[in-house]
Each structure stands twice: as structure tokens, then as C-alpha cells.
């Protein structure tokens, strides 16, 4: 269905105007005239239509166009024109399509009372007849380069004769580089000689010889040399008619009998056909959006057909599964940067890497191509043996040798112990399965060995990193001791020295049993111990901070001056006389990796809490602190909010 874009008032007017033309079998013929959007095309349209069973069917002339002088003068204009007719929603009759992309030099002339603006750009033009939504009769699609409103060069031109959508007789497609001329049978099958001439290289040509859709040979003339490419399967019992497209060219690759395969995907034939198909696709998109149309030119060819039976389908599924598993393993190792480094120093790792590499190259790559044929749907267009030979011109060797490096003793080659159980003879699907199985089992044999090597290597690297961090932490601790020991009170320095002696013992314990787990634990401990050391070194400054926080400037009415008054002395003295000595004592007596964080946390939160308490009503707390000398009880008191019961 399509939709109209216009106002209701306008629609009402149209209905009134059009009722008198209405029509057949109670259907109402109407016309529309106004702005219209069709996919990416926005313009003005005029067309007739019918309403039938709530469906809108296009009926009668159709015209839609757009061009803008403003846009052209400003920068560039994309113009278009579609004109033709519909019958019962099918495009029918003579049709014309124009697509322009123009710039102007903004120079105007007045000629015969008209303003003229010269334009340059590209104009596409297609015209021909349509029957029931299919091209019929001669169709010409032309792309011209326009300079100063005149055709300067033909960039593309195709002339095809259709009969109800089926290409007939002869056709010609040309672009600036090549010209293709060919013939069709009445049923659209390629026939006789299709010739492709290069307009750039004189004397260079390609001739494709078809017989009722079957390609017999290709004759290539290049630089005065003639090459013939022959194809098998020309006498196949069953054939299948398919479109001449990229998939067909791949099929031809399989069907070639030359010892030296010519890559037909590089032939100029296909791009030219594809370009043509692209232009027809554009028309098809427009017409299909409007009504019912099938506008693609279908150039038909015949290929041999060897349909897969259910057993073969199963075998192919199995092959695909094995391939997927094997590919997973090989991709993992081949893309492992860690293995890339390890193989430089570890000969065995290198040997196994080479095994994986060889299997990937010699086994998996052809198998992948094999499965790709199946995916592309062209596996059935060639005989099994032919496909096998194309993909495995040489059977992969079961014994995989490691390339010997200079100055390094030769490594043993790799072969599965049960290699004899795999039968690589024959050219059937089963042989491919045998090859895939061998590849998979080989990879599965290598996998655990390599994985272990990798993880060991990973552990060693991890340990090295951890040890470096440990050394850094130890260094940081030593530096802290050096820096602060002169300025800190004696008790503080002693606590710091104790921390150092604890970590020294832990470090010597670790060096006798180096492993990642204890290294991680020790690193954590070191970090915590460093935090404790920093916290102790910070104590004198914190005391000053607390003292300052708990000092009030009080106006003394007798002296008429301001005096510093220590407030809430019970809190500050509990901190100075009980808590700080407790921190130092705990550090010196029973600090350990297990409880160090707790102590650091306690010091931190208590300090923060004391600063908070300055501004809180602490009458009750101060009363409770009066005779309290137990640090734990004091901490407990501090953490209780005073306003809570």
C-alpha cells in the first residue's frame, strides 16, 4: 500500500471533482495531484487510482517529478521524473525514468522569452514498455555525463529486448571500459557467443561460448595471446537453470578443467552485469513501491546439478561441526599474543605452535572453503570428486614437521599415534570428514599441553609483577621511616620500626615459598602495613589538628581580649592520653597481616569522629568519659551518637 501526503481539504475537493469520472463495477476512479513521497524520492505527483475493497489500486496515467531551480543555483539539484501508466495496480504501457544530478555555473541567458541556465552533471534515463509489471520489448538504460546542458559522454548504456520480463535475442551492455554483446534463447537462456571487448586495451577480448545456457568454454584474448578455459559437466545428466550472477562465477571456478585455474571472479563480465542489474534494481524498487512489478533482468544459464541426498547432508553437518571446533582451538592459539612471545623462548611451545599453524593452513583452510561452497549453495553444481580435488589439490600430510631453525636442533615432527586409523584415500565427502577428524584430534592433543605452558608462563609473569610491587611497597616503607624518624616522637618511631621488622619477617618467609597466592596476600599485607605506618606518622599532625579544632577563641571580659580556650577537654585528653598510646602499643605488640587493616580503619574513623564531635552536644559523652581509661570503651563511646539514648 502507498499513502498520500496532502491535506484533507484538498482530498475533499478532489473527491468532488473526480466523482463524475468514476467508474467500473462500482469502483471509483479518482485522481491525485500534489506532493508525494516514494521511498527516498519526494516530489509532485499526478496519478489516477481506484478504491476497491478498501485497497487503493493505481489506475491510469502516472507522473511524478521533482526539480528545483533554487537548489540548483545554490549548490546542486537532484531531479527525477517517472512517467507511465498503471492498469489495476500493474505498471503497464510506455514508461520513462529520469534521474539527474546537476550543478550549474549560475550563468543565465534569455532565449525566446525563456531564462536558460546551463547545467552539468549526470543524467540517467531509462525507457521502454511494461506489460503486467515486467519489461517488454526493447529497453534502453543510459547514463550520460552532461556538460553545459549537452551530452558529453555516455557512461553506461544497456539495450535489452524483453518478452514479458524474459530477455530475448541480442543485447548490448557497455560502460566506459567494456562492451558486452550477447544473445539469449526465447526462454532467456544465454546462447551462442557472448563477447566482451575492452575499449581501453585494443585487441583484448573475452568470448564466452554458451550452448542453450551451458557454458562450453571461455576464450580470452590478451596481448595477442589466446587462452581457452574449458569446463566439465557439460554433459551432466541433470542441469539446473540459475541466474548469471556472482554465485555462477564461483561455480565456474569449480567447473574449470584447466590445470592452472583462471580466476574468473576477476573477469569484467560480472561487474558489467552487476552494474546493469543495479540500474534495473532502481527501477524495480520504484515500481514495486507503487504497484506490482518484477523488473529484474534475469539472464539465465544452466549448470550441472548433483543434488545432495540426506546422508550427504548429515555428513556435511558433521563436517561443519568438526570444523567449527577445530577452528575455535586453532584461532585461539594463533591469535594468542602470549604464545607468540612464549614460542620465541620455548622450543616445545614453538613446535606445537607450528603444528597448529600447519593444521590451520593445510587442513582447516580448504575445509572452510568446502563449507563456504555449501553455504553459498553452489556445492551441488559440481561433481563431488571435482570439488574435492579443487580444494585439496594435494592431500595434507598426517606428519607435521617443524621448520628447522638455524642453530637449533631439529624438533620431532608431530603425528597422531593412531594416524593409521584415519583414511585419507578417495575423494568423497567421507574423506573430507576423515581429514577434519584428524585435524580436530590433533588440535585436541596439542591443546592441553599448550594451555598448561601458557598458564605456567602467565603465573610466572604474574609473580614477577607482584614481586616488583612488593619491592616498591618495601621501598616506600623504608623511605617513610627515613623521612619521619627524625621528626617523630620516640614512641612513634619505635612503632614504625616494629612494622618494618614484621614485614621483613613476612618477606623472608615468602621468598622461601614463592607462589602467586602468597605473593598476593603479602602484597595486600604490605599495602596495609604501609597505610598503618603512614597513619602513625600522621598522628602528631592529627593531634595538632584536633587541638586546633578543640580550641575556641574566648572573649575575656576582665582582660578585654581574646584567649584560646581548650574545650571538651575530656574528649581531647581521651584521645591524647588513651587512644594514641593504645595505637602505638597495638602496633608494637600485636599487629599482624590479619588485623592491621582493622587498626588502620580504627585510627581513621576515630580521628574523623573526634573532629565531628567538636560540633555536637557531647555533655553526656564527656560525663561518661570522666573515669574511662579503656581504649575500647572510649572508641565505643565515641561512635555512639550523643542524641541517641
Amino acid at each position, binding site marked *: 500500500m502507498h499513502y498520500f501526503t496532502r491535506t484533507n481539504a484538498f482530498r475533499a475537493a478532489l473527491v468532488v471533482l473526480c466523482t463524475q469520472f468514476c467508474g467500473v463495477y462500482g469502483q471509483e476512479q479518482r485522481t491525485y495531484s500534489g506532493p508525494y513521497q516514494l521511498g527516498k524520492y519526494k516530489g509532485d505527483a499526478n496519478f489516477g487510482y481506484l478504491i476497491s475493497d478498501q485497497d487503493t489500486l493505481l489506475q491510469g496515467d502516472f507522473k511524478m517529478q521533482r526539480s528545483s531551480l533554487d537548489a540548483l543555483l545554490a549548490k546542486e539539484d537532484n531531479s527525477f521524473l517517472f512517467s507511465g501508466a498503471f492498469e489495476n495496480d500493474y505498471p503497464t504501457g510506455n514508461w520513462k525514468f529520469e534521474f539527474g544530478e546537476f550543478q550549474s555555473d549560475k550563468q543565465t541567458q534569455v532565449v525566446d522569452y525563456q531564462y536558460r541556465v546551463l547545467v552539468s552533471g549526470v543524467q540517467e534515463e531509462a525507457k521502454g514498455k511494461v506489460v503486467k509489471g515486467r519489461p517488454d520489448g526493447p529497453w534502453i538504460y543510459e547514463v550520460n555525463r552532461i556538460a553545459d546542458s549537452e551530452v558529453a559522454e555516455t557512461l553506461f548504456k544497456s539495450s535489452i529486448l524483453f518478452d514479458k520480463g524474459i530477455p530475448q535475442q541480442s543485447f548490448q551492455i557497455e560502460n566506459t571500459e567494456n562492451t558486452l554483446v550477447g544473445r539469449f534463447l526465447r526462454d532467456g537462456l544465454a546462447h551462442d557467443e557472448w563477447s566482451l571487448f575492452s575499449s581501453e586495451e585494443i585487441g583484448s577480448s573475452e568470448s564466452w561460448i554458451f550452448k542453450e545456457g551451458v557454458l562450453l568454454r571461455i576464450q580470452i584474448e590478451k596481448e595477442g595471446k589466446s587462452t581457452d578455459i574449458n569446463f566439465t559437466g557439460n554433459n551432466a545428466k541433470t542441469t539446473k537453470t540459475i541466474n548469471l550472477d556472482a554465485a555462477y562465477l564461483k561455480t565456474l571456478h569449480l567447473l574449470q578443467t584447466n590445470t592452472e585455474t583462471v580466476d574468473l571472479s576477476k573477469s569484467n563480465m560480472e561487474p558489467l552485469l552487476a552494474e546493469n542489474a543495479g540500474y534495473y534494481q532502481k527501477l524495480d524498487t520504484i515500481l514495486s513501491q507503487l504497484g506490482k512489478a518484477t523488473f529484474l533482468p534475469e539472464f539465465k544459464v544452466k549448470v550441472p546439478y548433483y543434488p545432495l541426498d540426506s546422508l550427504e547432508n548429515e555428513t556435511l553437518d558433521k563436517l561443519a561441526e568438526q570444523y567449527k571446533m577445530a577452528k575455535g582451538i586453532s584461532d585461539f592459539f594463533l591469535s594468542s599474543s602470549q604464545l607468540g612471545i612464549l614460542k620465541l623462548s620455548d622450543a616445545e611451545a614453538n613446535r606445537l605452535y607450528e603444528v597448529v599453524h600447519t593444521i590451520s593452513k593445510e587442513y582447516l583452510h580448504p575445509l572452510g572453503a568446502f563449507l563456504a561452497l555449501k553455504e553459498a549453495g553452489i556445492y551441488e553444481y559440481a561433481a563431488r570428486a571435482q570439488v574435492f580435488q579443487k580444494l585439496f589439490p594435494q592431500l595434507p600430510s598426517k606428519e607435521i614437521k617443524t621448520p628447522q631453525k638455524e642453530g637449533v636442533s631439529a624438533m620431532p615432527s608431530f603425528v597422531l599415534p593412531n594416524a593409521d586409523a584415519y583414511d585419507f584415500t578417495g575423494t568423497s565427502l567421507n574423506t573430507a570428514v576423515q581429514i577434519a577428524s584428524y585435524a580436530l584430534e590433533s588440535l585436541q592433543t596439542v591443546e592441553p599441553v599448550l594451555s598448561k605452558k601458557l598458564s605456567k608462563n602467565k603465573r610466572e609473569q604474574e609473580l614477577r609483577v607482584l614481586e616488583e610491587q612488593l619491592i616498591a611497597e618495601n621501598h616506600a616503607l623504608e623511605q617513610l621511616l627515613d623521612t619521619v624518624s627524625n621528626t617523630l616522637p620516640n614512641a612513634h618511631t619505635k612503632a614504625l620500626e616494629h612494622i618494618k621488622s614484621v614485614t621483613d619477617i613476612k618477606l623472608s618467609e615468602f621468598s622461601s615459598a614463592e607462589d602467586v597466592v602468597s605473593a598476593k596476600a603479602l602484597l595486600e599485607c604490605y599495602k596495609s602495613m604501609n597505610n598503618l605506618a603512614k597513619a602513625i606518622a600522621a598522628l602528631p599532625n592529627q593531634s595538632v589538628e584536633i587541638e586546633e579544632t578543640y580550641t575556641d577563641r574566648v*572573649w*575575656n*571580659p*576582665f*582582660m*578585654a*581580649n*581574646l584567649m584560646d580556650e581548650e574545650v571538651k577537654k575530656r574528649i581531647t585528653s581521651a584521645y591524647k592520653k588513651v587512644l594514641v598510646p593504645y595505637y602505638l602499643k597495638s602496633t608494637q605488640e600485636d599487629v599482624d597481616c590479619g588485623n592491621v587493616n582493622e587498626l588502620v580503619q580504627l585510627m581513621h574513623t576515630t580521628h574523623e569522629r573526634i573532629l565531628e564531635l567538636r*560540633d555536637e*552536644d557531647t555533655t553526656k559523652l564527656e560525663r561518661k568519659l570522666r573515669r574511662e581509661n579503656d581504649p575500647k570503651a572510649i572508641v565505643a563511646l565515641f561512635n555512639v551518637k550523643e542524641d541517641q539514648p
Partner: protein
Amino acid sequence: MKPINTGIIALLVVFFFRMVPMMAQEETEGVFLPTESEFKDPKTKVWFNTYGKIRISKRFFWDAQTHFRFQETKETPFIGQLAQIYNRHALAYIYSKKVNFSLGGVVRVNFNTDEDSEDRNVVPEFRIWHQYQFAQALYSAMIYHRIRIEHRWTQGFAEDSEYIFRNRWRYLFRAKVPLNNHKLEPSTLYVSPEAELIMQSGKQVVGSVMEDLRLTTTLGYILTPRLTVAAGLMYSHGQTFDNPGVFNQNWTLRFHMYFSPDFRKVRNKLPAIHLND
């Protein structure tokens, strides 16, 4: 100037005034002026004074002073017996850290210390007073100027004694010089020389306008910002009420306690506890 020097000078001033011979007074009606000023023998007194300045808001404090004043008697020389209990109260306004004003009343209970007297033992005395105090920093010391004006109703111990009204005009100059510190703060010992001249006027005051000249040296110690103790010796002399030609002399030992609590709630103290500093 070093603080110690200021103290010494203050003491010298005390002795200087002591030595100056008094000018002869004019003879008044009914009273025979002596040809030369007559100085009575000095009396000794001991005062125990408490001074409270209780902060009640950002700008106000309550001034509460209670003094116990002893005076020598024939029976008990030196410390003597309780002569006055003195209650001085006022509402004080803090204009700035250095300037404040007070207005209040005094109820003084006077005890008759004359053991031979047949008169009443106790009589009350009332005053209305206002005061203007200015302070300024001088090097490490502080100096203070205090103007105090009192309106005073007194009566004698005699049964039929009537109240007489007098005005008192008082100017006090005082310095506080820290001795062991560079400023006045807790744990500081200071010396405070002071001189106060008390003049009086009133219908009944005829001739005896200089009621008292007090010269004092005090040694104080600041315990906390809110508590200070001090002790000092005061020499004072002035014209007797009855005869301008006759001068009383006193030696007074004074003990002081200064306290300044702040009963405001924490949340009220927080926003503007320090006035303008």
C-alpha cells in the same frame, strides 16, 4: 617599656602620694578646719571580692560582684570584723571587644564596727550606678580607663539617721602587665597597678569632695580564660565627710576572684561567639 618597670613606677606613685603634704582647708560653717590637714591613723582592712561576668547573649553579660569587706577593730586588729557585704549587679552591653557599658544597682549592707557604739548594728545602703570602660593594648600590656558614676543613698547607724543622697564620680586607670608571657592568656602572672580617684557631690557634701584616692598594686594569675585570681595591696585616703580638713587613711589587703562563665547553649555560641574578630 618592660612590664616590671611599669609595676615599679606604680609602686613609686603610691609612695609619692603618701608623702605629699596636704593643703590646708578652708574653714566651713560649724566645722572648725584645722590649720593644717589632719591625717587620721590608717586603718587596716581586708577585702574578699568576687567578680562575675556572666555571658548571657552575644552582646550582653550580667555583672555580678559580691565583696566581703573586713575592717580592724579594737578587739581584732588587722583583719578585724565584717564591715560591709557588698552586692553590685548590672547588665552590661558589649559594644566591642574593647568597649563596654554597664547599668545596675548596688545593695550594700553596712555593719557597725564600733564595738562601743549603742547604735544600730546593720544598715543598708543603695546605689544606682553606670559605668563606661575602655581598654587598649599597649605592647604586651593592656591599659584600662573606667568611668563609674554612682547615685548613692546612705544613712548612719544612729536610730534616727536619715538617708542622704550623694553622687560619686569615679575615674580608674589600670594597667595589666604580663610578667611571664608576652600576652595575657592562661597561665600568665601579671601585675596590675591602678589608681582611682573618687569624687563626690551633693547638698550634704560641703568641702569634702575628694572622697577617696585609691592606689593599688595587684598581682594576678590567669588560671583559665574563664577564671583569674589576684591579690593586692591598696593605700587610700580621702577627706572625711564631716571635716574637709581631716583625712582618713586606709591600708587594704584585697583578694579577688574573677570568673566569666558562659551559659549559652552550644548552638547559640557557634555562629557569632567572637563578635567582630
